Structure formats: C-alpha cells, structure tokens
C-alpha cells in the first residue's frame, strides 16, 4: 500500500560523526540552502502585492534623506563627481551587508526546533539568510544601474569587474554572519552590540563621502576597515573612472595590508568559531 522501496543490500557501516557545520552530505547541504533561501526570498517578494517596491523603499528613502543632507546642508556632495549615484550604489551595497548580518544574528536561535530535533547542517542557517539578502541585492541593483545610466554615467568596460567587489563583500558578509549567529547562541547581547557596531561601520566606511576628503587623523582608522577598499574600488570601476582606486586612495599597496589582514583574519575567525560552536549548538540552546 505504501510502496516502500526495498533497502539496498547490505550497505556498509559508516561512522556517525555527530553534528557539524556541514554535516549530512554536500548535496543535502546545497539542496537545503537553495530551498530555504529561495522560499524566504519568494515569501518577501510575492507575499505582498508591492513586494519589489517595498524592498526598494528603504534604501531609496534613506538615499533621498542623505542626498538632501549632503548636497544641501553639508555640500560635500557637490565636490564629488556623480555624488547622487555613488551614494545610491553605496547605500544599496551596505544595505545588503547590514540586512544580512542583522538578520543572521538571531537566525540560528530562531531555528531552534530544527537544530535540536533533526540533524541539520548548521551552516545552512546563516548562509541562507545571506543568500536571501543577496537575491534582494540583485533585484535592487537592477534599479540602481537603471538610475546610474539615466543619470548620465557612461558605461565603461570596468563595469564587467563589478562581480569582484561584490563577491568580496559577499564573502565578508558571510563570515560576519557566521560569527554573529554562533556567538548569539551563548551571548544574547550580541544582538545589541552588533546593532551599534553596524551603525559605527556605516559611518566608518566611505559611503557618504569618498576616502580622499577624510583628514589624515581619521584616515588610518578607515584603512583598517576591510569594507573601505571594496567601496573605493567599486566607485572607481562603476561610478567615476577618474576616482582613485582602492590602492591609490590608500596611498600604496602597503597601506592596504591592514584591511586585507583584517579581512582574512575575520574570515579565518568565522571558520574557526563556527566549526567550534556548531557541534554544541543543540546543547547550548
């Protein structure tokens, strides 16, 4: 009646290794990741009638306010080539980082049932959050590039290089998401700490302003931020070919090393922390 398949003849005994970040086989990992990210994305876009416009509303509103402030009040904007579109692109890119990391903090704890009652590859949970945010970013970028063209920026061959900073940002976002989601299991104030830190990062990254207008005293701080070279390079490649790239803005390759070291360090830390915490998550919850 139920049509059970006959079980494979005498399969081999294999070790049960216990819970881990990716346990259960790579194919299952990929299928789960895809299903969860896609269903979440569909939910946010098709759940509401104005899904797409709704997801654009936040960056656009923020953009409108900041544009008004920085061109009408502080006038920093008028010194910078193509400032409005630079600001828009930066806000959307940083919005991805912010959306993904903030949502990731509570993600593992929110999936408590799954973590405690099934064998579930733990890494899928924060990764799916980042992936959902990435889909959102993709949708937003369509609007952003339409706006960039309408503004009159000439398409350049360097636009083809856009995936490089995008991937760099994606990898960094994933690393931060992994650290936050695994730490939150044990330290519940991570959510508060991160909401403050992410605001600090918003102002500590060349989003509202280009790096060259920053006075020397603050310049060094910005150069430790791994996001700085990513945003600077994006500006040179997409918005303003005349702008200094990441290397020139920093003042030489050597000056990029702190940010690079920070970047690699955080990625390595993410892998280490997550691998260490993954087997314990079910017990800590």
């Amino acid at each position, binding site marked *: 009646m*139920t*049509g*059970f398949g006959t079980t494979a003849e005498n399969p081999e005994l294999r*070790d049960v290794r216990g819970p881990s970040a990716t346990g259960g086989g790579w*194919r299952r990992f990929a299928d789960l990741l895809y*299903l969860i990210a896609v*269903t979440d994305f569909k*939910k946010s876009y098709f759940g509401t009638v104005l899904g797409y416009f709704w997801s654009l509303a936040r960056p656009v509103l923020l953009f409108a306010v900041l544009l008004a402030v920085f061109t009408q009040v502080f006038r920093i904007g008028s010194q910078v080539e193509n400032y409005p579109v630079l600001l828009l692109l930066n806000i959307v890119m940083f919005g991805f980082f912010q959306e993904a990391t903030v949502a990731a903090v509570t993600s593992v704890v929110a999936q408590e049932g799954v973590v405690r009652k099934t064998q579930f590859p733990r890494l899928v949970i924060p990764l799916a959050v980042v992936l959902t945010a990435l889909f959102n970013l993709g949708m937003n970028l369509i609007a952003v590039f339409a706006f960039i063209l309408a503004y009159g920026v000439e398409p350049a061959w360097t636009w083809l290089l856009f995936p490089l900073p995008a991937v760099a940002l994606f990898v960094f976002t994933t690393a931060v998401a992994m650290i936050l989601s695994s730490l939150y299991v044990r330290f519940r104030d991570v959510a508060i700490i991160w909401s403050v830190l992410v605001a600090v990062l918003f102002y500590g990254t060349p989003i509202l302003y280009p790096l060259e207008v920053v006075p020397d005293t603050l310049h060094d701080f910005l150069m430790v931020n791994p996001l700085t070279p990513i945003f600077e390079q994006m500006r040179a490649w997409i918005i303003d070919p005349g702008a200094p790239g990441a290397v020139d803005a920093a003042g030489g390759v050597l000056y990029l090393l702190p940010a690079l070291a920070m970047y690699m360090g955080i990625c390595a830390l993410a892998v280490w922390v997550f691998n260490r915490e993954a087997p314990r998550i079910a017990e800590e919850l």
Partner: protein
Amino acid sequence: MGEPVVIEAQGIHKRFRIPKHRINSFKERAVHPLARIEYRDLQALRDVSFDVRKGEFFGVVGRNGSGKSTLLKVMASIYRADAGRIRMAGRLAPFIELGVGFNPDLTARDNVVLNGVMMGLSRREAARRLDAVLDFAELEEFLELPLKNYSSGMLVRLAFAVMVQADADIMLIDEVLAVGDASFAQKCANTFRDMRDVGKTIVLVTHDMATVEEYCHRAMLIDEGEVRYMGDPGQVSRRYLRLNFERAAGDEDEQDYEGQTGTEDARIVRGWLEDSAGEHVTNLEHGDTIRFRAEVEGVRAVSDPSFGFMIRDADGVNVAGFGTHLESGEDEPAKSLDPGERVRIAADIENPLNPGRYTLDFWVCRNRNVTDVVVAVRRMITFVVFGSVWAPGIVSLKARLEAVPQEGVHQEEARE
C-alpha cells in the same frame, strides 16, 4: 537472525556540563572576567553499547531523564558523543520528532519538499513523491494551503506522511505511534507493520509498554544512563514496571506536599494508592481497582469536614470526582475534626481508565461546603494505568454491541 548489523554502538558516553551560574552575555563576562564558572556534571549516557540488525524494530525504554532521548539524539547526530563510536549502514531519517522544520507561512507543497530534503531525499526526488505524500495524508485538496491554516490533526498527518514516504532505511522515532484521529491512527499502525514486514529498521523510544510489546522484536531498558537489560520486549516491559515500582515504594514516610492551599486548618499527612495486598503502588493494570488512601490531621477544629478528590488525565481533564464526609453514628450531630485528630480516608474505585498517566487532586472542606476549602493539593498522586489494550478515549465503558444484517434488504441496495 542472519541479517547484517546496521546500527552498531560501542561504549557511548555523553556528559552534559551544566553551569551552576549561566553567563548569558558578554556584559556579564566583562564584569566578571576572572569568575570561574562552576559546572555540575550530568552523566547522561554511560558506556552504552548495542547492535541493531537490519529489519529489526528495536525499542528503547526508560523513565524520564534516563538518557534514552539523549541516546536517540546522539544517534541522529544532534549531539556529539564524548566517547564511543556509532556506525550505521544505510540512509537515516535524522528526525526524532514529527513536523520539525515545517514553516507555517509556506504551502503544504513547499513544506513537503523541504521536509523531504531534510529527510535526506534530493530535491527532485522529494518533489516526485509529493503526490504520494498528500495521498497518504489524505490532504490532496489542501496542497496550496499555507500550513498556518492547517489544523493540528492535519499537520500531524502531513508530517507522518512525509516521514513514511521519505523511505529511509533507518528511522529513529520518539513516541509517535498513534497520531491523528482514530482512523488515521489505525493507518499509522498498519504502516508500522508494513515497515516491519519490508525490513525497515526502526529504533523506537517510548514509555508505552503496550507499544513495545506489540511492535518490537527486541528492546533495551536504560536507567540512569546505563543499559540495564537488553532482549525480549516482554522482559523489558516487566523490568521497567518493576523499576518504577521500586522508586515509588522508596518514600514511605510522611510527605510534605508542596502546594497545599486553603486555610490550612487541617494538614494532609499522606496519600497513596495501594494494591489488594496493601502494597503502595504507582502503576495500576488496566481494570485493577483503584484503592486510594489518605490521612488527614486537624490543625484547628474543622466542623463537619468533607473529603473530596478528583482524577484527572494527563491533559488535566477532569475524569471523575468523588467525595465523602466524616462518619458519625445515627442521630448524632455532625462530627468535627479536632486539632491533632487523624482521619483515614479509603476509597475503592472501579477502574475503567484506559492506559495512560493520571493525577489525583485531594482536598478537605468545612461544613460540607465545597467553596470553603480547608486544605487542597493538586496532583497529589500521579499514577500510570498500564495494559496491552489500546482504546480510544479516556475510559473503556462496558457495552454490548451488535451489527446485524437487516431482514429483507437486498445486498446491492445495502451497499449504496
């Protein structure tokens, strides 16, 4: 049995370190940077070893906190064992509870595919089995309905259907044999028999002895993290009941009941159930007379006291209530309970209760007025009715049933 071993556990240890004071935030860590966290060790599993052969229904039995669920979680890769080795052959459904991972906002279709993938199917395979799942769950017409609009019965049916259709080689199951309404429960029971017959391997954790005796080929009794007995399910079930009996018989002394409420002009000294030989029991076989005994002592004078109690089932539903009052001779005025005086209450009650867990509330009232409570204890006694019958509902009532063909009605017509 010549079947190959598909689960092999050797020397499994699992210990939980429970911090006495839990540090939940970075703030606390920063305020007490040097504070040593003291731990209390809880040895959940001690050197547990067993083999399960292909096609076996293997029961794991133990009281609450005995370690049986921990064992299941170690097997399902939810916890990591501290020592020992587990090896398995074939695909495992890594679920120990039904319906985990259902997303209430998604439709049945999306959830079935997602759950199927969690059970170890590929995406395509999970989608292919969608119809079979909905067919089994009898929910075809609700395919596009978000799960938040499902009733709990429908959810359980869907979850069970996914598990069945995921068709894993080895299944770990924690207490889920009878789900949904009576007809679906019957379907589940049939399914389990089918699974057993086609050679699925199932590890079943339960404290329902009827299930163990009915389904399992072999069973294992765990207590305090150690294997106490392994083998014949009947033996396991008898040893399990004996184990419970010993525990309960341990506390003969006066009990200090928590949660005594009321004016406390009287005190409940103790209350218990006993068998026909006068031994204290906490387990009754289905049909055994319930012999409830209690002792009450007066603290201040209580005029015309009455004593009442209520049997309730595991969900807290009132099953039956009884009451009596202090006996006095004919034509005598109503008695009162004086300070220091003790009264013994005895009640022998016919037992139509179906197997399950029940509790008994007990209270004393003044002047036969149920609103004037002198002292009351909720859940004073918890007892289990056991038996190998499975019957729907709370009680089995005596009944005479018949189904008789009607005279003169033609068979074809009768079928319509």
